[in-house]
C-alpha cells in the first residue's frame, strides 16, 4: 500500500501508517549504501535546491549525497554567502531560485514555520531540514529507523531524551514520531531547558529533572547537543552541567542493559557525553548517519518521483501496480 506526499514539513501531521511506509521505503536504500556502485539514474536530470539559511555541514552533505546517489543535481545556497545578507526577503530569494526550475527544495532556516511559508508559495516539493525550534523531520525518521532496526520495533519504546530540550527541534520531531507508536517518553534536563508545556506535546510524557531518575529502565537514551553559547555563568556553568547531566558509563548502567545510545550530532565528547559511552557498542551514532542517507534518499525519491501527475496508463501498468 502506498501513500502520497507532497511536502515533508514535519512529523506532527503524519500518522503512524505514513511513517511506517517511509521507514519501509528507506530499507532498500540502506541496502543500496553497500553496493559497489553507488549511483542510480532514477532522478537523472532532476535538480534539488539546497537552501540552507542556517549553517550546517552534516545535514547538508547528507542531502547532497542522497541527491547525487539518486542521479540528481544540486543547487547550493548557504547563509554566509547568501543574498539575505544583502537584505533580500525569504520569499524573493525563493522566487529567484524557482526561476531556475528546481524539482525540489530542501530548506533549513532559523525561523520556525519558514518551510511551511515557502511550501505555500511554491509548486515544487519542499523538505524541511530544520526550521527554528519547530521540527527536523528527517532526523526523527532516521532516529526511528535506527531504533526500529536495533530494537526490532518502535511500539511501546521507553525513551529518555536529555539536554537542552527547549531549544531542540530534534527533540520535538522525535517526541511527535515516537508518541504515535505508543512510546513512553521521559524528558530530562536543567529546569530552564525543561518547561512544563512540553508535557502537552503528546500523551505519556514525563518531565524528570534528575538524569539518574530519568534513565531508569530506558531502552533508548538520546543525548542532545548542548550549544556552548548557552552554557554560561551564573545560570549554568559547563562544569555544573557535566557534573549533573553528562552521560557517563555509571549513569548508562541505570538504563536497561541493552539500551541504545543515540545523538543527533555533532557530539562534544566530555560535555554531554563521556567518550567511553560514545564509543561503546551501545552507541548508534554512526548507524544514525548511515540511516540518514537512506532516509533522505527515500524522501527525495518519494517526493520527486511521486510528484508528477500520471500522464497516461503505462503500458506495463498491470505490472507496475505490483
Amino acid at each position, binding site marked *: 500500500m502506498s501513500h502520497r506526499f507532497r511536502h515533508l514539513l514535519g512529523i506532527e501531521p503524519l500518522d503512524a501508517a505514513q511513517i511506517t511506509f517511509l521507514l519501509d521505503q528507506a530499507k532498500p536504500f540502506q541496502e543500496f549504501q553497500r553496493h559497489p*556502485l553507488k549511483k542510480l539514474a532514477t532522478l537523472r536530470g532532476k535538480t534539488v535546491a539546497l537552501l540552507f539559511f542556517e549553517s550546517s555541514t552534516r545535514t547538508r552533505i547528507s542531502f547532497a549525497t542522497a541527491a547525487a546517489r539518486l542521479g540528481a543535481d544540486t543547487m547550493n545556497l548557504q547563509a554566509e554567502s547568501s543574498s539575505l545578507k544583502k537584505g533580500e526577503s525569504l520569499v524573493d530569494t525563493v522566487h529567484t531560485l524557482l526561476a531556475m526550475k528546481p524539482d525540489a527544495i530542501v530548506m533549513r532556516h532559523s525561523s520556525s514555520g519558514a518551510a511551511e511559508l515557502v511550501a505555500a508559495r511554491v509548486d515544487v516539493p519542499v523538505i524541511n531540514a530544520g526550521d527554528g525550534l519547530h521540527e527536523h523531520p528527517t532526523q526523527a525518521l532516521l532516529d526511528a529507523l535506527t531504533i526500529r532496526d536495533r530494537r526490532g520495533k518502535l511500539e511501546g519504546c521507553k525513551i529518555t531524551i536529555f539536554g537542552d530540550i527547549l531549544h531542540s527541534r530534534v527533540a520535538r520531531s522525535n517526541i511527535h514520531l515516537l508518541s504515535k507508536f505508543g512510546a513512553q517518553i521521559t524528558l530530562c534536563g536543567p529546569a530552564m531547558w525543561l518547561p512544563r508545556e512540553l508535557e502537552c506535546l503528546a500523551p505519556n510524557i514525563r518531565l524528570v529533572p534528575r538524569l539518574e531518575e530519568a534513565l531508569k529502565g530506558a531502552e533508548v537514551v538520546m543525548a542532545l547537543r548542548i550549544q556552548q553559547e548557552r552554557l554560561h555563568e551564573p545560570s549554568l556553568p559547563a562544569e555544573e552541567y557535566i557534573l549533573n547531566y553528562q552521560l557517563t558509563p555509571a549513569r548508562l548502567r541505570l538504563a536497561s542493559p541493552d539500551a541504545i545510545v543515540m545523538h543527533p550530532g555533532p557530539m562534544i565528547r566530555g560535555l554531554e557525553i563521556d567518550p567511553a559511552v560514545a564509543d561503546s557498542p551501545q552507541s548508534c551514532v554512526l548507524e544514525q548517519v548511515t540511516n540518514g542517507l537512506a532516509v533522505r534518499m527515500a524522501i527525495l525519491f518519494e517526493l520527486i518521483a511521486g510528484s508528477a501527475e500520471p500522464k*497516461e*496508463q503505462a503500458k506495463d501498468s498491470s505490472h507496475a501496480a505490483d
Partner: protein
Amino acid sequence: MHVVEKRQLMSAVEIPRTLDRLAHEIVEKSGGAKDLALIGVRRRGIPLAERLAKIIRASSRAQVPVGTLDITLYRDDLSTVAPQPVVQASEIPFAIDGSDILLVDDVLYTGRTVRAAMNGLFDLGRPRRIRLCVLIDRGHRELPVEATFVGRSVETSDTEIIEVRLQEIDHDERVMVMDRVD
C-alpha cells in the same frame, strides 16, 4: 476505465506443466545448470523463479540459488506509472560477478522491464551472461530484448492486458487476456 476478462490462456494445470517443461529446457541448455543462478523480477517473477529453481534442483543436483530484483529505481517511466511508486528491497544472496544468470518474469511485453532489470544487475556486478525466461511473451517489443525460454507466445493487441495469477501471491492460478473497457 476497468478491465474485463476476454479469455483464459492458461489454467491451474497448465501453468505448472509449462514450468516443468521450461525447467527441463533450462537444464538442457545450461550444460547441467552447475553455475546457474535465477533472479525473479519484482513481483510475479519471484514465485516463478522459486518454482523453477525447485524443479531444476530436483532434476540436476545443481545448487541454483534464487535472488529477487526490484526494478522501481531503474524504470524509465516513473512519471507515468502508479501515483506513488513503492520501492522494495532486492535480495541477491550470491555474487553477481562471473555468474550465469537467468532472469525470470511473468510477461515479456515492451522489454523495458528487462532493460531496467539488466541496469540493476550491472550496478551490482558483472555477470558472465544473462538470459531471460518468461511465462508469456506477448510481443510488441519496443527494445531489442528477447527471451531464451518462453512458456507460451501470444498475439495481443495494445488495448489488451495479460493478467497472470499465481497461488503464492493471488491465491489463484491462471493466465487471462483482459480487455480495457471505458
